[in-house]
């Protein structure tokens, strides 16, 4: 019987670890020991709490106190004040950004109020390196139930009935995918977990593997039982060292407990998992490319059919699912398909994890029921736009997705609604943009990414993305023509129709989803050589306001090319021909006398 009166959970996700959270754990333990209460308070590191904006996070239970931006040296005051005397440390509490009132209980934080954590149920709750904590949270019960009480057909039926769709981006019904793999008879089949998370700004798969690795191990074993496979492979990016480490530990512990290996729970079912490392190529998130990469071939996609369910890894029937998809499986089997399908919208069931990034107050990882609106996600949970600026657009679906604007804010988020609006769910990255973001530059950023990541196998993608990014480069430098804008549109349509795999087919989406909505912005770059958002440095001009300039000479001294002239105590002038638009004078002027437009 544990004598612990309190638990102190310290976030051990990659974000908080890089802000020194491991040292916080060490210090807390040290001070607890010094004060003789190390047997009364348990300190442990958990997975990601999601509130990365204010990391490192320390949460104290049972009172749900939520400390933010904790430094290792704060451990002493937490122990002495809170853990010994029961007084909360006011200065470390989270403060509501708009009202500045301190919130001492995470239940009252807007960030958590509207969330529903299914895939992230154990992240920030258990110690990911401790299989016993996972078992205490009903871990491996779903596997046990499947093996002893259900036939493979019943498992597949349950997953089908739940309405779960692939969380990696495609949104294909998971149960149906399992059924295809089940129906293809073979002496050997494989279950593959796709942990090749590649969208810029998305980190939900990493967080699940870091925070709750056993849920993936369990789900893969369930899938193996359902489709008739006894071998599982996790394809994970080598750039996720912490996730790899925790997953390895989880696999070893599961073997030790007899939850992986031969004759699991004495049911005669064998299953084991091997880890395969990816080198971080975006295209390897595509399932055929992923399989080729695992076989030691080049990471290039091949046409489907044949689908992996028919001929995948080494030509055998293979079922590939994404990490977040797998994380939902044990809950579905335990709580039932009806429970799961009661959450969400008509065609998109359950919840979805999103990684909020960009110009938003609460950068972090959130999970909401499908059908939650963008407005709720961005303004309620996300806390609105940084610095009180105006919302301009939100990019969803990563490089394959598109931009949604003000008019789409009240759209309930689900697979089909996002596609109808010209974007897509993708793996769940959400990058929020404000009035200072230039849309042609955003499109250029994504096109440069896909140009880099194109595997080069098919012409539309290899050459098409190159030409698109060249055109966008020209436009953002003010050298574009109206013909270029037309070319941008037709080329995008052509690539979309002719590229071999999902990467190429969706690569033009950042252009297509911005060029109509923000047509005026594109035209301003071309016709007026002007960037309305003031972001394209090549198009900016700096001016000195006569009425504000006091002639302090600070700007002329800082200018690297001697473009500013003027006598002491008289108005200075910028020579536009010499100016290289570096912005040094703008930064230096203390009197707001320099403007850019």
């Amino acid at each position: 019987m544990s004598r612990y009166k309190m638990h102190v959970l310290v976030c051990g996700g990659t974000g908080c670890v890089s802000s020194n959270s491991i040292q916080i754990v060490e210090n807390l333990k040290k001070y607890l020991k010094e004060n003789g209460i190390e047997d009364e308070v348990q300190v442990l590191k958990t997975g990601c709490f999601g509130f990365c904006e204010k990391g490192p996070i320390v949460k104290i239970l049972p009172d749900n106190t939520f400390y933010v931006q904790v430094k290792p040296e704060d451990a002493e005051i937490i122990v002495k004040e809170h853990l010994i005397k029961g007084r909360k440390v006011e200065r470390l509490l989270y403060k509501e950004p708009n009202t500045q009132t301190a919130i001492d209980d995470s239940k009252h934080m807007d960030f958590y109020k509207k969330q529903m954590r299914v895939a992230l149920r154990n992240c920030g709750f258990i110690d990911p390196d401790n299989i016993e904590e996972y078992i205490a949270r009903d871990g491996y019960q779903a596997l046990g139930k499947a093996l002893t009480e259900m036939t493979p057909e019943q498992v597949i039926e349950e997953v089908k009935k739940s309405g779960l769709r692939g969380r990696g981006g495609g949104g294909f019904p998971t149960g149906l995918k399992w059924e295809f793999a089940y129906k293809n008879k073979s002496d050997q089949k494989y279950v593959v977990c796709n942990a090749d998370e590649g969208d810029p700004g998305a980190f939900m798969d990493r967080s699940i593997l870091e925070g709750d690795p056993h849920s993936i191990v369990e789900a893969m074993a369930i899938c193996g039982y359902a489709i008739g496979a006894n071998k599982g492979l996790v394809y994970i990016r080598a750039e996720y060292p912490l996730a790899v480490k925790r997953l390895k530990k989880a696999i070893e512990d599961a073997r030790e407990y007899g939850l992986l290996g031969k004759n699991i729970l004495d049911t005669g079912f064998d299953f084991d998992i091997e880890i395969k490392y990816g080198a971080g190529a975006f295209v390897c998130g595509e399932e055929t490319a992923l399989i080729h990469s695992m076989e030691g071939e080049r990471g290039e996609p091949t046409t489907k059919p044949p689908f992996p369910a028919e001929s995948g890894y080494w030509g055998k029937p293979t079922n590939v699912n994404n990490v977040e998809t797998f994380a939902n499986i044990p809950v579905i089997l335990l709580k039932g398909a009806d429970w799961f399908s009661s959450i969400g919208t008509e065609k998109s069931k359950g919840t979805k994890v999103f990684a909020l990034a960009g110009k938003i107050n609460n950068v972090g990882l959130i999970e909401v029921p499908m059908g939650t609106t963008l407005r709720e996600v961005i303004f309620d949970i996300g806390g609105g736009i940084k610095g009180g600026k105006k919302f301009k657009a939100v990019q969803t679906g990563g490089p394959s997705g598109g931009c949604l604007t003000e008019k789409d804010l009240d759209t309930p988020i689900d697979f089909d609604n996002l596609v109808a609006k010209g974007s897509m769910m993708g793996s769940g990255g959400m990058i929020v943009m404000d009035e200072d973001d230039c849309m042609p530059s955003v499109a250029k950023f994504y096109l440069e990414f896909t140009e880099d990541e194109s595997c080069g196998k098919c012409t539309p993608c290899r050459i098409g993305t190159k030409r698109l990014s060249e055109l966008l480069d020209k436009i953002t430098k003010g050298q574009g023509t109206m013909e270029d804008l037309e070319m941008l549109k037709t080329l995008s349509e052509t690539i979309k129709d002719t590229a071999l795999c999902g990467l190429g087919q969706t690569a033009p989406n950042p252009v297509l989803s911005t060029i109509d909505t923000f047509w005026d912005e594109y035209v301003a770059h071309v016709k007026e050589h002007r960037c309305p958002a003031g972001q394209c440095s090549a198009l900016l001009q700096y001016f000195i306001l006569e009425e504000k300039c006091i002639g302090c000479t600070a700007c002329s001294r800082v200018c690297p090319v001697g473009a500013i002239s003027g006598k002491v105590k008289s108005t200075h002038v910028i020579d536009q021909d010499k100016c290289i638009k570096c912005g040094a004078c703008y930064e230096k002027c203390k009197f707001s006398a320099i403007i850019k437009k």
Partner: protein
Amino acid sequence: MGKIKSLEELKQLREQYKSKVDIREKGDQMEKMILVRVAMATCGIASGARDVMDAFIDEVANRKLDNVVVSQTGCMGYCYAEPTVEVTIPGKEPVVFGEVNKDRVKEIVDKYIIHGELLDGIIPVTHKTVDD
């Protein structure tokens, strides 16, 4: 740790491990919990509040009361009656018990926490908090 041989054994293990996370699970549903707060300032600790808190934790565990959370708080101001314990049943006003010892812990759990019956030794609440 040997290999788990059956679903039964796995279920037994789960029960055994439950206590590892129960403080966290209770914290997650705080609004439904009966909250027992032991005043643990210098005066309280000097009068034996630690033993009282341990006694509460044991009593709650022995009786498998999964709707009771025992936690600590600072000085409540009733230094003449330490150790003091405040019990809050959801939807009811907090009740403060004074001069609590191990025997009184059993009584409080038996009568007030389980059956909602009041007993002797209640200190009238003389203060308001900023939350009120």
